[in-house]
Every structure is written in structure tokens, then in C-alpha cells.
């Protein structure tokens, strides 16, 4: 079965640079979520989109922005990167018509800020 695709899988950036993470949801899924997982921590919710509209917002820094496009893929844009932004970034997707709204996670993008 098709899964959530994230690219790139690994990314190394310098401080103050920008990064763009991409997420391609499971076909037919209409909702996308972004989570950040620091070392030894549980995933923290950043933001979500349903039918290309922002549906919820968590602890996402103002330096970050995201959007969902007409083909339902999503991009997380991160500017003025800081050392503390080094983390594993997960994208998840779900289908609103499913009863349990189960979120299926992608493999993650490991961002390292030097």
C-alpha cells in the first residue's frame, strides 16, 4: 500500500539558512499534519491542513510557514534556522471520511542545523 512520502530524508543546513520540507500524503487523503520530534522526545504538533486550508496550529515558530497545495501535497518552509531546529520532522496524513481520523506517518526528514 502507498505510504506518506517525505523529501528530502536528510537535510543539513547552516544557521540562518532556509529549508523546505515536502510531504506527499497517501492517495485520497485530504488532511496533512506536521510534527517535530527532538532527540529523546515525543513528537510535537506543529500545524495541520484540511482541504488546503489551515485547520489547526500548534507550537510552530513564526519563522516557519506551511501550506497545502491543490494536489494535497504540503511544504514546510523554515527560515532563519537555529541550532535548536535540528530535529526529525514528520508529516502525517489522514482521510476525513474515516471514522477514527487515523494519522499515518511518513518516514520523516532529519534536519541538522550546523
Amino acid at each position, binding site marked *: 500500500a502507498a505510504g506518506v512520502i517525505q523529501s528530502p530524508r536528510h537535510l543539513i543546513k547552516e544557521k540562518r539558512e532556509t529549508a523546505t520540507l515536502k510531504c506527499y500524503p497517501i492517495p485520497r487523503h485530504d488532511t496533512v499534519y506536521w510534527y517535530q520530534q527532538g532527540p529523546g522526545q515525543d513528537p510535537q504538533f506543529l500545524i495541520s491542513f484540511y482541504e488546503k486550508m489551515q485547520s489547526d496550529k500548534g507550537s510552530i515558530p513564526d519563522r516557519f510557514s506551511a501550506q497545502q497545495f491543490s494536489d494535497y501535497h504540503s511544504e514546510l518552509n523554515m527560515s532563519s534556522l537555529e541550532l535548536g531546529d535540528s530535529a526529525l520532522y514528520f508529516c502525517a496524513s489522514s482521510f476525513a471520511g474515516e471514522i477514527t*481520523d*487515523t494519522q499515518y506517518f511518513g*518516514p*520523516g526528514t532529519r534536519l541538522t542545523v550546523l
Partner: protein
Amino acid sequence: AQTVTQSQPEMSVQEAETVTLSCTYDTSESDYYLFWYKQPPSRQMILVIRQEAYKQQNATENRFSVNFQKAAKSFSLKISDSQLGDAAMYFCAYLGIGDYKLSFGAGTTVTVRA
């Protein structure tokens, strides 16, 4: 905000034996969803099992089963016939009806001894 508590940072189990992971949560809602996710060393987040709060019957997926005690707000995961491939971090997660944000516990690391 909902709080999810996993009180066991680490659990160890002998291969072929059974291990139970505990999870408690705090909510004022009467209906919601609960999940267990597995995160192996690859860091991929894999859905293990899910439970709808309105269902009294405990969910089961092959060797994985839950003990859902709604009044006690408890949601434990039992892994039967443990296998080496079960070694991972296990996260308990809560999702409110109509919510987008998954609230995770801190995780329990499961080690399987051969």
C-alpha cells in the same frame, strides 16, 4: 490540553513472553480516539493499534491487544509472544473528536531479550 502519561520509561521482555505497557490520559471529553504507535530504531512512526472510546470491546491486532478502561482513563498495550522485531519505542497517543493534534505520551522503550 489533554495529558497523556506513560509511567514506564523502559520495559524489558524475554522473547516469546508477554509485556504490558501502561498509559493513562486526562480528558473531560466523553468521546475520543486512542492509539499506540511504534518507533523502531529507524525512527519511522508505525501505527500499532487504535481504539474508539465509544466502543467497549478492546481492540486487537494479531499479537497486540489493549485493555481500555474508560472510567479509569487507562489504555494499556499488551504484546504477546514478543519477537525481536518488537524492540522499539512505543508511544501512546490521544485524539479528540474533531481535533487535529495528536497528544503523545513520553514513550516507553521496549527491549526484547533473545
